[in-house]
Protein backbone atom coordinates (compact mmCIF):
# COMPACT_ATOMS: atom_id res chain seq x y z
CA UNK A 1 0.00 0.00 0.00
CA UNK A 2 1.57 3.31 -1.02
CA UNK A 3 1.05 6.17 1.40
CA UNK A 4 0.26 9.66 0.17
CA UNK A 5 3.83 10.77 0.92
CA UNK A 6 5.21 8.04 -1.33
CA UNK A 7 2.80 8.94 -4.08
CA UNK A 8 3.79 12.57 -3.88
CA UNK A 9 7.46 11.63 -3.95
CA UNK A 10 7.16 9.49 -7.04
CA UNK A 11 5.12 12.15 -8.77
CA UNK A 12 7.65 14.96 -8.38
CA UNK A 13 11.04 13.24 -8.05
CA UNK A 14 13.42 12.76 -11.02
CA UNK A 15 12.76 9.67 -13.10
CA UNK A 16 15.48 7.44 -11.60
CA UNK A 17 14.12 7.78 -8.06
CA UNK A 18 10.64 7.11 -9.28
CA UNK A 19 11.77 3.86 -10.90
CA UNK A 20 13.68 2.80 -7.80
CA UNK A 21 10.75 3.78 -5.62
CA UNK A 22 8.33 1.89 -7.81
CA UNK A 23 10.56 -1.18 -7.78
CA UNK A 24 10.95 -0.98 -4.02
CA UNK A 25 7.28 -0.49 -3.25
CA UNK A 26 6.27 -3.05 -5.86
CA UNK A 27 8.70 -5.47 -4.24
CA UNK A 28 7.33 -4.84 -0.77
CA UNK A 29 3.80 -5.17 -2.02
CA UNK A 30 4.55 -8.65 -3.32
CA UNK A 31 3.51 -10.94 -0.48
CA UNK A 32 5.87 -13.80 -1.29
CA UNK A 33 8.96 -11.63 -1.64
CA UNK A 34 8.07 -9.83 1.56
CA UNK A 35 7.77 -13.16 3.35
CA UNK A 36 11.17 -14.24 2.02
CA UNK A 37 12.85 -11.04 3.20
CA UNK A 38 11.19 -11.38 6.59
CA UNK A 39 12.42 -14.97 6.93
CA UNK A 40 15.99 -14.09 5.95
CA UNK A 41 16.00 -11.10 8.30
CA UNK A 42 14.79 -13.20 11.23
CA UNK A 43 17.42 -15.89 10.72
CA UNK A 44 20.10 -13.21 10.43
CA UNK A 45 18.93 -11.46 13.61
CA UNK A 46 18.83 -14.69 15.61
CA UNK A 47 22.27 -15.80 14.36
CA UNK A 48 23.73 -12.43 15.30
CA UNK A 49 21.98 -12.58 18.65
CA UNK A 50 23.48 -15.97 19.52
CA UNK A 51 26.91 -14.72 18.42
CA UNK A 52 26.56 -11.72 20.72
CA UNK A 53 25.39 -13.66 23.78
CA UNK A 54 27.97 -16.42 23.40
CA UNK A 55 30.87 -14.18 22.42
CA UNK A 56 30.43 -10.60 23.57
CA UNK A 57 28.46 -10.46 26.80
CA UNK A 58 30.38 -10.02 30.04
CA UNK A 59 30.93 -13.43 31.60
CA UNK A 60 30.11 -15.13 28.31
CA UNK A 61 30.49 -18.91 27.93
CA UNK A 62 33.71 -18.67 25.90
CA UNK A 63 35.46 -16.58 28.58
CA UNK A 64 34.25 -18.97 31.27
CA UNK A 65 35.45 -21.95 29.25
CA UNK A 66 38.92 -20.42 28.71
CA UNK A 67 39.19 -19.52 32.40
CA UNK A 68 38.29 -23.08 33.28
CA UNK A 69 40.94 -24.52 30.95
CA UNK A 70 43.57 -22.17 32.38
CA UNK A 71 42.75 -22.77 36.04
CA UNK A 72 41.69 -26.43 36.01
CA UNK A 73 43.77 -27.99 33.26
CA UNK A 74 46.69 -25.58 33.72
CA UNK A 75 46.83 -24.72 30.01
CA UNK A 76 48.60 -21.56 28.92
CA UNK A 77 46.23 -18.81 27.85
CA UNK A 78 47.26 -19.30 24.18
CA UNK A 79 46.57 -23.05 24.31
CA UNK A 80 43.23 -22.48 26.01
CA UNK A 81 42.36 -19.95 23.33
CA UNK A 82 43.26 -22.46 20.62
CA UNK A 83 41.12 -25.19 22.24
CA UNK A 84 38.15 -22.86 22.64
CA UNK A 85 38.60 -21.79 19.02
CA UNK A 86 38.06 -25.34 17.86
CA UNK A 87 35.09 -25.95 20.15
CA UNK A 88 33.11 -22.85 19.31
CA UNK A 89 34.12 -22.78 15.67
CA UNK A 90 35.24 -19.16 16.08
CA UNK A 91 38.89 -18.05 15.78
CA UNK A 92 39.27 -16.05 18.97
CA UNK A 93 42.64 -14.60 17.97
CA UNK A 94 41.17 -12.59 15.12
CA UNK A 95 39.42 -9.21 15.42
CA UNK A 96 35.80 -9.45 16.50
CA UNK A 97 34.24 -8.43 13.16
CA UNK A 98 36.31 -11.08 11.34
CA UNK A 99 35.11 -13.64 13.91
CA UNK A 100 31.56 -12.53 13.21
CA UNK A 101 31.93 -12.86 9.45
CA UNK A 102 33.53 -16.29 9.68
CA UNK A 103 30.87 -17.38 12.23
CA UNK A 104 28.15 -16.48 9.72
CA UNK A 105 30.12 -18.24 6.97
CA UNK A 106 30.39 -21.40 9.10
CA UNK A 107 26.68 -21.29 9.87
CA UNK A 108 25.87 -21.02 6.18
CA UNK A 109 27.93 -24.16 5.61
CA UNK A 110 26.20 -25.94 8.50
CA UNK A 111 29.28 -25.92 10.74
CA UNK A 112 28.01 -25.28 14.27
CA UNK A 113 31.19 -26.18 16.12
CA UNK A 114 31.52 -29.22 18.34
CA UNK A 115 30.37 -30.33 21.77
CA UNK A 116 32.53 -29.35 24.75
CA UNK A 117 31.78 -32.45 26.81
CA UNK A 118 31.60 -35.24 24.24
CA UNK A 119 35.03 -34.72 22.73
CA UNK A 120 35.00 -34.00 19.02
CA UNK A 121 31.31 -34.66 18.36
CA UNK A 122 30.12 -32.10 15.82
CA UNK A 123 26.98 -30.26 16.97
CA UNK A 124 25.31 -30.99 13.62
CA UNK A 125 25.67 -34.74 14.18
CA UNK A 126 24.09 -34.42 17.65
CA UNK A 127 21.21 -32.37 16.29
CA UNK A 128 20.54 -34.99 13.64
CA UNK A 129 20.55 -37.73 16.27
CA UNK A 130 17.97 -36.03 18.54
CA UNK A 131 15.83 -34.36 15.87
CA UNK A 132 13.88 -37.42 14.58
CA UNK A 133 12.51 -38.27 18.05
CA UNK A 134 11.06 -34.82 18.61
CA UNK A 135 9.63 -34.78 15.10
CA UNK A 136 8.07 -38.21 15.73
CA UNK A 137 6.59 -37.56 19.18
CA UNK A 138 5.50 -33.95 18.83
CA UNK A 139 4.54 -34.37 15.17
CA UNK A 140 2.22 -37.25 16.09
CA UNK A 141 0.82 -35.16 18.94
CA UNK A 142 0.22 -32.22 16.62
CA UNK A 143 -1.54 -34.35 14.03
CA UNK A 144 -3.75 -36.10 16.60
CA UNK A 145 -4.69 -32.88 18.39
CA UNK A 146 -5.49 -31.22 15.05
CA UNK A 147 -7.72 -34.09 13.90
CA UNK A 148 -9.53 -34.44 17.23
CA UNK A 149 -9.78 -30.66 17.60
CA UNK A 150 -11.35 -29.98 14.20
CA UNK A 151 -13.78 -32.90 14.58
CA UNK A 152 -14.92 -31.69 18.00
CA UNK A 153 -15.01 -28.07 16.79
CA UNK A 154 -17.18 -28.92 13.80
CA UNK A 155 -19.44 -31.07 15.95
CA UNK A 156 -19.94 -28.49 18.72
CA UNK A 157 -20.57 -25.72 16.18
CA UNK A 158 -23.24 -27.75 14.41
CA UNK A 159 -24.84 -28.72 17.74
CA UNK A 160 -24.42 -25.28 19.20
CA UNK A 161 -25.81 -24.78 22.72
CA UNK A 162 -26.63 -28.47 23.10
CA UNK A 163 -25.52 -30.24 26.30
CA UNK A 164 -22.72 -31.94 24.30
CA UNK A 165 -21.48 -28.53 23.15
CA UNK A 166 -21.45 -27.18 26.71
CA UNK A 167 -19.63 -30.17 28.16
CA UNK A 168 -17.03 -30.47 25.39
CA UNK A 169 -16.41 -26.73 25.21
CA UNK A 170 -16.05 -26.30 28.97
CA UNK A 171 -13.77 -29.30 29.42
CA UNK A 172 -11.48 -28.23 26.61
CA UNK A 173 -11.41 -24.64 27.86
CA UNK A 174 -10.39 -25.83 31.33
CA UNK A 175 -7.77 -28.33 30.15
CA UNK A 176 -6.15 -25.98 27.66
CA UNK A 177 -5.74 -23.26 30.29
CA UNK A 178 -3.55 -25.54 32.42
CA UNK A 179 0.19 -25.40 31.57
CA UNK A 180 1.50 -28.49 29.76
CA UNK A 181 4.13 -29.22 32.41
CA UNK A 182 1.47 -29.37 35.12
CA UNK A 183 -0.56 -31.82 33.01
CA UNK A 184 2.62 -33.87 32.54
CA UNK A 185 3.33 -33.89 36.28
CA UNK A 186 -0.27 -34.90 37.02
CA UNK A 187 0.02 -37.79 34.56
CA UNK A 188 3.21 -38.99 36.26
CA UNK A 189 1.68 -38.59 39.73
CA UNK A 190 -1.63 -40.31 39.00
CA UNK A 191 -0.94 -42.86 36.25
CA UNK A 192 2.58 -43.68 37.35
CA UNK A 193 2.70 -43.35 41.12
CA UNK A 194 -0.77 -43.32 42.70
CA UNK A 195 -2.60 -45.80 40.46
CA UNK A 196 0.54 -47.58 39.19
CA UNK A 197 -1.09 -48.20 35.82
CA UNK A 198 2.04 -47.29 33.90
CA UNK A 199 5.71 -48.19 34.46
CA UNK A 200 6.80 -44.54 34.39
CA UNK A 201 10.52 -45.17 34.81
CA UNK A 202 10.62 -47.83 32.08
CA UNK A 203 8.85 -45.44 29.74
CA UNK A 204 11.65 -42.90 29.99
CA UNK A 205 13.96 -42.38 27.05
CA UNK A 206 13.13 -42.84 23.39
CA UNK A 207 13.70 -46.61 23.11
CA UNK A 208 14.13 -49.55 25.49
CA UNK A 209 17.65 -50.95 25.81
CA UNK A 210 18.44 -53.50 23.12
CA UNK A 211 15.87 -52.33 20.60
CA UNK A 212 17.46 -51.62 17.22
CA UNK A 213 15.93 -49.01 14.92
CA UNK A 214 14.49 -50.59 11.78
CA UNK A 215 11.22 -51.40 10.09
CA UNK A 216 10.24 -54.04 12.63
CA UNK A 217 7.03 -54.32 14.61
CA UNK A 218 9.07 -54.45 17.81
CA UNK A 219 10.79 -51.15 17.07
CA UNK A 220 7.59 -49.31 16.13
CA UNK A 221 5.77 -50.63 19.19
CA UNK A 222 8.63 -49.64 21.48
CA UNK A 223 8.91 -46.18 19.91
CA UNK A 224 5.19 -45.57 20.53
CA UNK A 225 5.45 -47.01 24.05
CA UNK A 226 8.11 -44.43 24.94
CA UNK A 227 6.47 -41.55 23.07
CA UNK A 228 2.96 -42.25 24.35
CA UNK A 229 2.98 -40.02 27.44
CA UNK A 230 4.62 -37.06 25.64
CA UNK A 231 2.02 -37.48 22.88
CA UNK A 232 -0.90 -37.70 25.32
CA UNK A 233 0.30 -34.60 27.19
CA UNK A 234 0.68 -32.68 23.94
CA UNK A 235 -2.77 -33.74 22.72
CA UNK A 236 -4.43 -32.83 26.04
CA UNK A 237 -2.94 -29.34 26.07
CA UNK A 238 -3.35 -28.48 22.38
CA UNK A 239 -6.67 -30.04 21.31
CA UNK A 240 -8.76 -27.37 23.04
CA UNK A 241 -7.24 -24.55 21.02
CA UNK A 242 -7.87 -26.34 17.70
CA UNK A 243 -11.39 -27.14 18.83
CA UNK A 244 -12.24 -23.56 19.76
CA UNK A 245 -10.69 -22.16 16.57
CA UNK A 246 -12.55 -24.66 14.41
CA UNK A 247 -15.79 -23.98 16.27
CA UNK A 248 -15.53 -20.21 15.76
CA UNK A 249 -14.52 -20.69 12.16
CA UNK A 250 -17.47 -23.01 11.53
CA UNK A 251 -19.92 -20.68 13.25
CA UNK A 252 -18.69 -17.86 11.00
CA UNK A 253 -19.01 -20.07 7.91
CA UNK A 254 -22.58 -21.08 8.89
CA UNK A 255 -23.66 -17.45 8.63
CA UNK A 256 -22.34 -17.03 5.08
CA UNK A 257 -24.80 -16.37 2.29
CA UNK A 258 -23.74 -19.41 0.29
CA UNK A 259 -24.91 -21.65 3.14
CA UNK A 260 -28.30 -19.98 3.19
CA UNK A 261 -28.39 -20.31 -0.58
CA UNK A 262 -27.46 -23.99 -0.40
CA UNK A 263 -30.25 -24.56 2.13
CA UNK A 264 -32.68 -22.68 -0.08
CA UNK A 265 -31.69 -24.94 -2.97
CA UNK A 266 -32.75 -27.86 -0.80
CA UNK A 267 -29.35 -29.53 -0.44
CA UNK A 268 -29.08 -32.12 2.30
CA UNK A 269 -27.72 -30.98 5.67
CA UNK A 270 -24.99 -33.55 5.33
CA UNK A 271 -23.82 -32.14 2.01
CA UNK A 272 -23.99 -28.59 3.35
CA UNK A 273 -21.87 -29.38 6.39
CA UNK A 274 -19.17 -31.28 4.52
CA UNK A 275 -18.92 -29.54 1.15
CA UNK A 276 -19.89 -26.01 2.12
CA UNK A 277 -19.31 -25.31 5.81
CA UNK A 278 -16.51 -27.69 6.80
CA UNK A 279 -14.35 -27.03 3.77
CA UNK A 280 -14.47 -23.27 4.17
CA UNK A 281 -14.16 -23.34 7.94
CA UNK A 282 -11.02 -25.44 7.87
CA UNK A 283 -9.22 -23.16 5.40
CA UNK A 284 -7.78 -20.68 7.92
CA UNK A 285 -6.75 -23.61 10.16
CA UNK A 286 -4.35 -24.96 7.55
CA UNK A 287 -2.23 -21.83 7.86
CA UNK A 288 -2.18 -22.23 11.62
CA UNK A 289 -1.35 -25.89 11.29
CA UNK A 290 1.67 -25.02 9.14
CA UNK A 291 2.84 -22.46 11.70
CA UNK A 292 2.37 -24.97 14.54
CA UNK A 293 4.39 -27.51 12.57
CA UNK A 294 7.32 -25.08 12.80
CA UNK A 295 6.99 -25.02 16.58
CA UNK A 296 7.28 -28.81 16.80
CA UNK A 297 11.03 -28.72 17.50
CA UNK A 298 10.91 -26.29 20.41
CA UNK A 299 7.32 -26.80 21.46
CA UNK A 300 7.72 -29.72 23.82
CA UNK A 301 10.61 -28.56 25.96
CA UNK A 302 8.82 -29.16 29.27
CA UNK A 303 7.17 -32.37 28.12
CA UNK A 304 10.49 -33.88 27.01
CA UNK A 305 12.04 -32.80 30.31
CA UNK A 306 9.29 -34.41 32.41
CA UNK A 307 9.25 -37.76 30.59
CA UNK A 308 13.04 -37.78 30.02
CA UNK A 309 12.31 -38.10 26.30
CA UNK A 310 15.59 -37.48 24.49
CA UNK A 311 14.54 -35.10 21.76
CA UNK A 312 15.72 -31.60 20.92
CA UNK A 313 14.03 -29.98 23.91
CA UNK A 314 15.75 -32.41 26.24
CA UNK A 315 19.06 -31.78 24.43
CA UNK A 316 18.61 -28.03 24.90
CA UNK A 317 17.89 -28.46 28.61
CA UNK A 318 20.77 -30.84 29.04
CA UNK A 319 23.27 -28.65 27.19
CA UNK A 320 22.28 -25.72 29.39
CA UNK A 321 22.65 -27.79 32.52
CA UNK A 322 26.09 -29.00 31.49
CA UNK A 323 27.13 -25.62 30.10
CA UNK A 324 27.76 -27.14 26.68
CA UNK A 325 27.14 -23.87 24.87
CA UNK A 326 27.92 -24.87 21.27
CA UNK A 327 25.11 -27.45 21.54
CA UNK A 328 22.77 -24.93 23.15
CA UNK A 329 23.48 -22.46 20.35
CA UNK A 330 22.93 -25.15 17.71
CA UNK A 331 19.59 -26.36 19.13
CA UNK A 332 18.33 -22.81 19.49
CA UNK A 333 19.27 -21.92 15.90
CA UNK A 334 17.69 -25.11 14.54
CA UNK A 335 14.45 -24.46 16.46
CA UNK A 336 14.31 -20.89 15.17
CA UNK A 337 15.05 -21.86 11.56
CA UNK A 338 12.23 -24.40 11.62
CA UNK A 339 9.78 -21.78 12.90
CA UNK A 340 10.93 -19.30 10.25
CA UNK A 341 10.62 -21.85 7.44
CA UNK A 342 7.16 -22.90 8.65
CA UNK A 343 6.03 -19.29 8.76
CA UNK A 344 7.31 -18.80 5.24
CA UNK A 345 5.40 -21.89 4.10
CA UNK A 346 2.30 -20.63 5.89
CA UNK A 347 2.54 -17.34 4.00
CA UNK A 348 2.85 -19.25 0.73
CA UNK A 349 0.04 -21.68 1.57
CA UNK A 350 -2.18 -18.78 2.55
CA UNK A 351 -1.63 -16.93 -0.72
CA UNK A 352 -2.24 -20.18 -2.64
CA UNK A 353 -5.38 -21.19 -0.74
CA UNK A 354 -6.99 -17.79 -0.68
CA UNK A 355 -6.70 -16.09 -4.06
CA UNK A 356 -7.85 -12.80 -2.56
CA UNK A 357 -4.47 -12.41 -0.78
CA UNK A 358 -1.18 -11.63 -2.45
CA UNK A 359 -2.33 -10.02 -5.65
CA UNK A 360 -1.51 -6.69 -3.97
Amino acid at each position, binding site marked *: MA*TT*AEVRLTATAPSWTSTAGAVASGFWRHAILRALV*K*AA*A*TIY*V*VSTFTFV*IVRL*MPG*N*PIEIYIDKLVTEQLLSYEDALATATGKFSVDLRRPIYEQYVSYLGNLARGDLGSSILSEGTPVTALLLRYLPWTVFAVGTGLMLSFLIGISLGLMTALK*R*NSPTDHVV*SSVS*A*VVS*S*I*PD*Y*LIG*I*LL*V*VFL*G*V*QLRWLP*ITQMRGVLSPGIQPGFTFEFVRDAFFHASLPIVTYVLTHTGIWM*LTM*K*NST*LAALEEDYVTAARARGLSERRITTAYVGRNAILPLFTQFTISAG*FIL*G*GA*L*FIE*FIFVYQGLGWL*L*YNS*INQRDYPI*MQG*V*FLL*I*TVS*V*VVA*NLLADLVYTKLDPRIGRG
Partner: protein
Amino acid sequence: MTATLDFLRLLKSRPVGLAGLIGIVLFVVVSFVGPLLVPLDTKVDLTAIYAPPSFAHPLGTDYQGRDVFNQIIWGGRDIMIVAFLAALLSTVIAVTFGSLGAVVGGAVDSTILAITDVILTIPRLPLLVVLAALLRLNSILILALIVGALAWPSLLRAVRAQVLSLKEREFVEAARALDLGLGHIIFAEILPNMRSYIAISFILAMTQAIYAQAGLIFLGLVPLSGTNWGVMINLAWVRGAVFFRDSLPYILSPVLAIALFQLALVSLASALEDIFNPRLRGAA
Protein backbone atom coordinates in the same frame (compact mmCIF):
# COMPACT_ATOMS: atom_id res chain seq x y z
CA MET B 1 -17.76 3.58 41.31
CA THR B 2 -20.90 3.32 39.20
CA ALA B 3 -18.74 1.90 36.42
CA THR B 4 -17.56 -0.83 38.79
CA LEU B 5 -21.13 -1.59 39.85
CA ASP B 6 -22.27 -1.71 36.21
CA PHE B 7 -19.43 -4.05 35.47
CA LEU B 8 -20.30 -6.36 38.36
CA ARG B 9 -23.94 -6.35 37.27
CA LEU B 10 -22.88 -7.41 33.77
CA LEU B 11 -20.63 -10.08 35.20
CA LYS B 12 -23.43 -11.44 37.40
CA SER B 13 -25.14 -12.95 34.38
CA ARG B 14 -21.95 -14.88 33.61
CA PRO B 15 -21.33 -17.23 36.54
CA VAL B 16 -18.05 -18.55 35.12
CA GLY B 17 -16.62 -15.05 34.83
CA LEU B 18 -17.87 -14.15 38.30
CA ALA B 19 -16.31 -17.31 39.72
CA GLY B 20 -13.07 -16.33 37.98
CA LEU B 21 -13.13 -12.87 39.51
CA ILE B 22 -13.87 -14.26 42.98
CA GLY B 23 -11.07 -16.80 42.54
CA ILE B 24 -8.58 -14.11 41.54
CA VAL B 25 -9.55 -11.91 44.49
CA LEU B 26 -9.26 -14.88 46.84
CA PHE B 27 -5.82 -15.88 45.55
CA VAL B 28 -4.56 -12.28 45.69
CA VAL B 29 -5.87 -11.73 49.23
CA VAL B 30 -4.40 -15.01 50.50
CA SER B 31 -1.03 -14.32 48.84
CA PHE B 32 -0.68 -10.69 49.91
CA VAL B 33 -2.56 -10.51 53.22
CA GLY B 34 -1.87 -14.09 54.33
CA PRO B 35 1.88 -13.57 54.88
CA LEU B 36 1.04 -10.63 57.18
CA LEU B 37 -1.07 -12.88 59.40
CA VAL B 38 0.83 -16.16 59.23
CA PRO B 39 4.57 -16.08 59.94
CA LEU B 40 6.81 -17.96 57.49
CA ASP B 41 7.38 -21.46 58.86
CA THR B 42 10.39 -23.26 57.41
CA LYS B 43 10.87 -25.53 60.42
CA VAL B 44 12.33 -28.85 59.28
CA ASP B 45 10.82 -31.88 61.00
CA LEU B 46 12.39 -35.11 59.79
CA THR B 47 9.96 -37.18 61.86
CA ALA B 48 7.00 -35.87 59.85
CA ILE B 49 8.05 -36.28 56.20
CA TYR B 50 5.03 -36.43 53.85
CA ALA B 51 2.65 -36.31 56.80
CA PRO B 52 -0.99 -36.54 55.71
CA PRO B 53 -3.23 -33.48 56.06
CA SER B 54 -4.08 -32.81 59.70
CA PHE B 55 -5.15 -29.90 61.88
CA ALA B 56 -1.52 -28.87 62.37
CA HIS B 57 -0.70 -29.29 58.68
CA PRO B 58 -3.88 -28.73 56.59
CA LEU B 59 -2.06 -29.68 53.37
CA GLY B 60 0.40 -32.12 54.87
CA THR B 61 4.19 -31.71 54.89
CA ASP B 62 6.97 -31.80 52.29
CA TYR B 63 10.13 -33.91 51.87
CA GLN B 64 11.68 -32.24 54.92
CA GLY B 65 8.57 -32.30 57.05
CA ARG B 66 7.88 -28.59 56.49
CA ASP B 67 4.29 -27.32 56.46
CA VAL B 68 2.89 -27.18 52.90
CA PHE B 69 -0.05 -24.89 53.72
CA ASN B 70 2.39 -22.26 54.94
CA GLN B 71 4.40 -22.49 51.71
CA ILE B 72 1.22 -22.13 49.63
CA ILE B 73 0.29 -18.94 51.48
CA TRP B 74 3.77 -17.48 51.10
CA GLY B 75 4.48 -18.85 47.64
CA GLY B 76 1.99 -16.96 45.47
CA ARG B 77 3.15 -13.40 45.98
CA ASP B 78 6.29 -13.46 43.83
CA ILE B 79 4.53 -15.36 41.04
CA MET B 80 1.78 -12.73 40.96
CA ILE B 81 4.20 -9.80 41.12
CA VAL B 82 6.21 -11.18 38.20
CA ALA B 83 3.03 -11.93 36.22
CA PHE B 84 1.65 -8.45 36.87
CA LEU B 85 4.87 -6.59 36.03
CA ALA B 86 5.58 -8.67 32.94
CA ALA B 87 2.02 -8.20 31.66
CA LEU B 88 2.22 -4.47 32.41
CA LEU B 89 5.49 -4.10 30.52
CA SER B 90 4.38 -6.06 27.47
CA THR B 91 0.98 -4.32 27.36
CA VAL B 92 2.55 -0.86 27.62
CA ILE B 93 5.02 -1.65 24.82
CA ALA B 94 2.31 -3.16 22.63
CA VAL B 95 -0.23 -0.39 23.16
CA THR B 96 2.25 2.48 22.83
CA PHE B 97 4.04 1.32 19.70
CA GLY B 98 1.05 -0.43 18.14
CA SER B 99 -1.11 2.70 18.27
CA LEU B 100 1.82 4.95 17.37
CA GLY B 101 2.51 2.93 14.23
CA ALA B 102 -1.14 2.83 13.24
CA VAL B 103 -1.74 6.55 13.75
CA VAL B 104 1.53 7.87 12.27
CA GLY B 105 1.80 5.32 9.47
CA GLY B 106 4.53 5.43 6.83
CA ALA B 107 8.11 4.52 7.65
CA VAL B 108 7.51 4.54 11.44
CA ASP B 109 4.72 2.00 11.06
CA SER B 110 6.73 -0.18 8.66
CA THR B 111 9.75 -0.19 10.98
CA ILE B 112 7.68 -1.09 14.06
CA LEU B 113 5.89 -3.80 12.11
CA ALA B 114 9.13 -5.28 10.73
CA ILE B 115 10.74 -5.47 14.19
CA THR B 116 7.54 -6.99 15.60
CA ASP B 117 7.39 -9.61 12.86
CA VAL B 118 10.98 -10.68 13.47
CA ILE B 119 10.55 -10.98 17.25
CA LEU B 120 7.20 -12.72 16.81
CA THR B 121 8.89 -15.44 14.78
CA ILE B 122 11.61 -16.25 17.31
CA PRO B 123 10.29 -19.14 19.44
CA ARG B 124 9.77 -17.47 22.78
CA LEU B 125 10.15 -20.33 25.22
CA PRO B 126 13.49 -21.66 23.92
CA LEU B 127 14.73 -18.05 23.82
CA LEU B 128 13.65 -17.52 27.43
CA VAL B 129 15.34 -20.75 28.44
CA VAL B 130 18.59 -19.70 26.74
CA LEU B 131 18.44 -16.20 28.23
CA ALA B 132 17.63 -17.51 31.71
CA ALA B 133 20.57 -19.89 31.49
CA LEU B 134 23.02 -17.17 30.47
CA LEU B 135 21.76 -14.33 32.64
CA ARG B 136 21.26 -16.27 35.91
CA LEU B 137 18.00 -14.48 36.74
CA ASN B 138 18.18 -14.41 40.48
CA SER B 139 15.86 -11.47 41.00
CA ILE B 140 12.13 -11.52 40.35
CA LEU B 141 12.32 -8.03 38.83
CA ILE B 142 14.76 -9.12 36.12
CA LEU B 143 12.66 -12.24 35.53
CA ALA B 144 9.58 -10.03 35.03
CA LEU B 145 11.55 -7.72 32.75
CA ILE B 146 12.76 -10.52 30.49
CA VAL B 147 9.39 -12.30 30.34
CA GLY B 148 7.59 -9.02 29.63
CA ALA B 149 10.14 -7.78 27.12
CA LEU B 150 9.50 -10.80 24.88
CA ALA B 151 5.72 -11.06 25.22
CA TRP B 152 4.42 -8.00 23.35
CA PRO B 153 4.60 -8.76 19.58
CA SER B 154 1.26 -10.48 18.98
CA LEU B 155 -0.62 -7.96 21.13
CA LEU B 156 1.10 -5.11 19.28
CA ARG B 157 -0.21 -6.40 15.97
CA ALA B 158 -3.72 -6.76 17.38
CA VAL B 159 -3.67 -3.25 18.89
CA ARG B 160 -2.37 -1.80 15.63
CA ALA B 161 -5.17 -3.47 13.66
CA GLN B 162 -7.78 -2.11 16.08
CA VAL B 163 -6.37 1.41 16.01
CA LEU B 164 -6.25 1.32 12.20
CA SER B 165 -10.00 0.71 12.11
CA LEU B 166 -10.76 3.16 14.94
CA LYS B 167 -8.81 6.00 13.38
CA GLU B 168 -11.16 6.13 10.41
CA ARG B 169 -14.11 6.89 12.70
CA GLU B 170 -15.72 10.33 12.77
CA PHE B 171 -14.66 11.27 16.31
CA VAL B 172 -11.00 10.78 15.41
CA GLU B 173 -11.47 12.68 12.16
CA ALA B 174 -13.00 15.49 14.20
CA ALA B 175 -10.09 15.56 16.63
CA ARG B 176 -7.69 15.65 13.71
CA ALA B 177 -9.61 18.46 12.07
CA LEU B 178 -9.42 20.40 15.34
CA ASP B 179 -5.64 19.81 15.31
CA LEU B 180 -5.64 18.32 18.83
CA GLY B 181 -2.25 16.67 18.41
CA LEU B 182 -1.02 13.09 18.20
CA GLY B 183 -0.89 12.53 21.98
CA HIS B 184 -4.47 13.66 22.42
CA ILE B 185 -5.70 11.55 19.51
CA ILE B 186 -4.02 8.38 20.79
CA PHE B 187 -4.57 8.73 24.53
CA ALA B 188 -7.83 10.69 24.75
CA GLU B 189 -9.72 9.55 21.65
CA ILE B 190 -8.58 6.11 20.53
CA LEU B 191 -7.31 4.24 23.60
CA PRO B 192 -10.38 4.86 25.81
CA ASN B 193 -12.37 3.00 23.16
CA MET B 194 -10.07 0.03 23.54
CA ARG B 195 -10.17 -0.19 27.35
CA SER B 196 -11.95 -3.50 27.52
CA TYR B 197 -9.77 -5.01 24.81
CA ILE B 198 -6.60 -3.92 26.60
CA ALA B 199 -7.92 -5.23 29.93
CA ILE B 200 -8.63 -8.66 28.41
CA SER B 201 -5.22 -8.75 26.73
CA PHE B 202 -3.59 -7.77 30.02
CA ILE B 203 -5.20 -10.70 31.84
CA LEU B 204 -4.17 -13.12 29.09
CA ALA B 205 -0.63 -11.67 29.17
CA MET B 206 -0.59 -12.47 32.89
CA THR B 207 -1.49 -16.11 32.22
CA GLN B 208 1.33 -16.34 29.69
CA ALA B 209 3.78 -14.76 32.12
CA ILE B 210 2.78 -17.28 34.79
CA TYR B 211 3.25 -20.13 32.32
CA ALA B 212 6.70 -18.89 31.31
CA GLN B 213 8.05 -18.06 34.76
CA ALA B 214 6.73 -21.14 36.53
CA GLY B 215 8.09 -23.25 33.67
CA LEU B 216 11.55 -21.69 33.91
CA ILE B 217 11.54 -22.15 37.67
CA PHE B 218 10.35 -25.74 37.29
CA LEU B 219 13.30 -26.48 34.98
CA GLY B 220 15.55 -25.05 37.69
CA LEU B 221 16.86 -22.28 35.43
CA VAL B 222 15.92 -19.46 37.76
CA PRO B 223 17.90 -19.80 40.98
CA LEU B 224 15.28 -18.19 43.20
CA SER B 225 15.47 -18.49 46.90
CA GLY B 226 12.44 -18.16 49.10
CA THR B 227 9.03 -19.69 49.01
CA ASN B 228 7.40 -19.82 45.60
CA TRP B 229 4.85 -22.20 44.04
CA GLY B 230 7.24 -22.72 41.12
CA VAL B 231 10.15 -23.50 43.43
CA MET B 232 7.91 -25.93 45.35
CA ILE B 233 7.17 -27.87 42.14
CA ASN B 234 10.84 -27.78 41.14
CA LEU B 235 11.95 -29.14 44.53
CA ALA B 236 9.24 -31.80 44.58
CA TRP B 237 10.48 -32.89 41.15
CA VAL B 238 14.26 -32.86 41.67
CA ARG B 239 14.04 -34.36 45.18
CA GLY B 240 11.91 -37.17 43.74
CA ALA B 241 9.00 -36.41 46.05
CA VAL B 242 6.69 -36.99 43.08
CA PHE B 243 7.54 -40.68 43.19
CA PHE B 244 6.32 -41.29 46.74
CA ARG B 245 2.67 -42.19 47.11
CA ASP B 246 2.42 -40.33 50.43
CA SER B 247 3.52 -37.07 48.87
CA LEU B 248 0.24 -36.57 46.97
CA PRO B 249 -1.11 -33.59 49.00
CA TYR B 250 2.32 -31.95 48.90
CA ILE B 251 2.79 -32.23 45.12
CA LEU B 252 -0.84 -31.42 44.29
CA SER B 253 -0.90 -28.19 46.36
CA PRO B 254 1.39 -25.99 44.22
CA VAL B 255 0.23 -27.66 40.98
CA LEU B 256 -3.41 -26.90 41.77
CA ALA B 257 -2.57 -23.42 43.07
CA ILE B 258 -1.00 -22.45 39.73
CA ALA B 259 -3.60 -24.29 37.64
CA LEU B 260 -6.57 -22.78 39.51
CA PHE B 261 -5.14 -19.28 39.42
CA GLN B 262 -4.60 -19.66 35.66
CA LEU B 263 -8.12 -21.00 35.28
CA ALA B 264 -9.56 -18.06 37.24
CA LEU B 265 -7.72 -15.57 35.03
CA VAL B 266 -8.82 -17.29 31.82
CA SER B 267 -12.44 -17.52 33.01
CA LEU B 268 -12.56 -13.82 33.79
CA ALA B 269 -10.92 -12.93 30.47
CA SER B 270 -13.35 -15.00 28.44
CA ALA B 271 -16.35 -13.59 30.32
CA LEU B 272 -15.07 -10.07 29.63
CA GLU B 273 -14.67 -10.95 25.98
CA ASP B 274 -18.23 -12.21 25.98
CA ILE B 275 -19.50 -8.97 27.52
CA PHE B 276 -17.52 -6.50 25.43
CA ASN B 277 -17.40 -8.40 22.15
CA PRO B 278 -21.05 -9.30 21.58
CA ARG B 279 -20.17 -10.33 18.02
CA LEU B 280 -18.60 -13.47 19.45
CA ARG B 281 -21.33 -14.08 22.03
CA GLY B 282 -21.98 -17.75 22.47
CA ALA B 283 -19.17 -18.73 20.18
CA ALA B 284 -16.81 -19.90 22.88
